[in-house]
């Protein structure tokens, strides 16, 4: 089995979690979506997936979670080489300024989505960051072209010559 690049959604309210995952279903064929309702569960799942040779491309994380909060989880992931390159997005209604600043400075937070979100915004954000991820981290970004930003991936092939005439 070929290893996969996962998208993670961490959210403690089941209806919200479902809504996010539903909005992202167009990516599911290529990038399996994993769900967790707490930071602890998320970390266990991530460890299991990474041990099986998979990668985490993107995490969309709520700030307020039972137990450890979202920013702590993102900072921890940033300090772990296996998830350092994972694109990190906060999706929340009530993160304070301090927490958000910490997420940017210490977790290399890429984006902040405020609740309630627009589906198109969520989809475009996911597309952009997953495209960033595959261009930076994979050998053959072409495989993911159909659900990502095809123009950017084609331009990458044009400039970096990952593919040449044979």
């Amino acid at each position, binding site marked *: 089995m070929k290893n996969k690049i996962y998208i993670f959604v961490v959210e403690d309210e089941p209806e919200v979690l479902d809504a996010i995952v539903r909005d992202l279903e167009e990516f599911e064929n290529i990038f399996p979506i994993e769900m967790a309702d707490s930071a602890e569960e998320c970390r266990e799942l991530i460890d299991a997936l990474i041990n099986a040779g998979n990668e985490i491309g993107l995490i969309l994380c709520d700030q307020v979670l039972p137990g450890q909060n979202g920013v702590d989880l993102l900072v921890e992931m940033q300090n772990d080489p296996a998830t350092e390159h994972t694109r990190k997005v906060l999706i929340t209604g009530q993160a304070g300024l301090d927490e958000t600043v910490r997420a940017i400075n210490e977790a290399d937070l890429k984006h902040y989505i405020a609740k309630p979100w627009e589906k198109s915004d969520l989809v475009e954000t996911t597309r952009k960051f997953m495209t960033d991820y595959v261009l930076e981290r994979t050998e053959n970004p072409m495989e993911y072209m*159909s659900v990502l930003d095809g123009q950017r991936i*084609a331009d990458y092939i*044009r400039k970096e010559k990952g*593919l040449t005439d044979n």
Partner: protein
Amino acid sequence: MTKIKTTGLFLGITGFCIPLLFNFPGLSLAGHLAMSIFLMAAVFWMFETIPIYSTSILVIFSQVLLLSTEGIIDYSGIAGYDPLPYTRFIGTLANPIIILFLGGFVLADASVKYDFDKNLTRILLSPFGNRTSTIILGLMAVTAALSAFMSNTATTAMMITVIIPIIAKMDPADPARIGIALSVPFAANIGGIATPIGTPPNAVVIAALNQQGLTVAFGSWMLYALPLAIVMLIVAWQVLLRLHPPATEMVSLDLDSKLQTSPHALLLYITFGATVLLWVTEGIHGIKSSIVALLPVVVLTLSSAFSKQDIRKLPWEVLWLIAGGIALGISMETTGLASWLVGGIAWGSLSSLMVLVVFGAVALIMSNFLSNTVTASLLIPLALTLVTSGALEGVFGMLMVGLVIALSASFAMILPISTPPNAIAESTGVLKTKHMLLSGSIIGIIGLTLILLMSVFYWPNII
């Protein structure tokens, strides 16, 4: 390692050993060793056990080791082979055709660096208006024109960035989306035949003809192949229009272009124009195209328009791939292996047209599954030997069979694996393999037929 690669590794090593274990009557010791190298290379190229350019490097290494005067075998007391200096084998890396390609690569990469390819495309597309069918023709014409001078793959990648916004605005049920997505790789494959530097199989064939003392000028190649490219472009356009008729009459095309005007960019435009002009007029001034090819390399590097980093990013592995193909041909010819191989078949009973039919069909079928360059590298040494066996007539026969092999190899486009441009188009997710299979098969069969018609009615009159 996948199962296929492991099978390839096993078969390749077995292939290498067969000529060492068995004695083939009539074949010299060097011929046996050349056969070992040939079988190993053929299997590795087919199964892609190792990257295809690595196989090429391995070929050159094995030849130096086993077939050169500096190698491990002392041929002084052995009849049937006059060993070549090792420089003949490593020298393939500086073969004139490799230098020609190097010049082409520098021009192409500099064009990408200054977005000349993208902006030129937009300028060239503007006269084609807004009708869906003529826009498809426009896309194909521009793709083919660029891919005649740049790599087919880079041209396709660039054109995909142009067509994605067009396709995105169309009704998802409009069949023309599939037509447009197929038009680009098909036109890139077809455009590659138009010039010697259009695509690597042309290089392998021209280099092999050179070894026979037959030089093919840049303009002459265009005279032989360009008319076919134009006709095939129209054929492919019509095939795609009929299979995927546009549901909407008009499509919108956003053609904002702004040619860069920095001094480096301007220098590139002038160099590009001057080089191409000197290439196509080789017949008038007599300066060889591979010498002209040094012009862009010199001008663009001395002016720093093309930097050290840019030089590092050139697709060097393609040059290795071509060099290995040329080297394989050299050892097959000089050791007598090629004539021994074709000697077993009664080619004399075939008409020369039948010989062309056989090589054209085999090239077309093989390169649908293998790299086009590999197909040409494996077939051309065998084909050229047929001249000595009398099945083809002299210089003229060699040129004809060379053209047939190179052009047929480029018309293979039925699957995503057939050529990298096809692979890119398939990756967009707009089309399915079955669409490519159907239109690609029709185009391949018409293409082969036209090549054979040209070998009867066109080339004999102009060569």
